[in-house]
């Protein structure tokens, strides 16, 4: 999945929140879980002046099973999640996805790939990706004459 239209995302989030609020007000709270994304893994991406942050929920995945690659502003996350038991005798329910997964994202700016930090705690992957020097927001002082 490629993400190209960056500027409109904050309003898209606002719209989603508004929809959630509306659904709640109709008393249809059962719908809320369906708003979780079907793409695996689902990601949240946010930024500040210095860095872009990406968070993905990867329960049961070890950091060694995740492969992260960054080229300029292209990010790929690949990995696999083990099935709990491959030769299991009897599943009553099987809802947890297993096997290979991958996500590809185009970030809005170039990343300083050498400085990227990745952590995986309690099944949540966090990438801290410092923006390349050219891409950082600069404060410009406006002088009055």
């Amino acid at each position: 999945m490629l993400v190209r239209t960056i500027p409109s995302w904050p309003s898209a989030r606002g719209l989603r929140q508004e929809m959630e609020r509306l659904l709640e007000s109709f008393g249809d709270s059962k719908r809320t879980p369906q708003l979780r994304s079907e793409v695996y893994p689902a990601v949240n991406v946010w930024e500040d002046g210095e860095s872009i942050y990406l968070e993905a929920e990867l329960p049961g995945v070890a950091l060694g099973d995740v492969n992260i690659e960054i080229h300029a502003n292209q990010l790929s996350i690949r990995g696999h999640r083990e099935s709990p038991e491959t030769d299991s005798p009897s599943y009553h329910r099987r809802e947890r996805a297993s096997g290979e997964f991958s996500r590809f994202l185009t970030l809005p700016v170039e990343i300083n790939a050498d400085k990227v930090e990745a952590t995986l705690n309690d099944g949540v992957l966090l990438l801290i990706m410092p923006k390349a020097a050219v891409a950082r927001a600069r404060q410009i002082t406006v002088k009055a004459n």
Partner: protein
Amino acid sequence: MTSALANKDRETAIAQPEQTRTGPVFKPHVDIIEHPNELLVIADIPGATSEAIELQFERGELTINAQIASRQAADASYLLSEYGVGAFQRTFRLGEGIDSNGITAEVSNGVLTLTLPKTSTAKSHTIEVKAK
């Protein structure tokens, strides 16, 4: 006829547990695996530490409840927002065959594993066929 209808109304009016907390509640994905002596319930609860998870067994129902705090500032500037963070909750009705006192739970990497031992009567056993 009227009484049958009234009864039907009554049946649909049985109180279901309702959510009293505000905020989104998500249903964790689970695998349920049966072994000869136990049932395993494996639930994905990303972001959950052992302190955040609450297990309750009451009147034959086992409830998993986990409160996950938001990991980002409320005013974070999002480029992409595909999932929400909130509470995870799911309830299972356990049959007679589960020894509720023997249930154990552990969490690792955001995956909760519950071990539900079967009562001795519910355990499967093979019956030997003797040759005469």
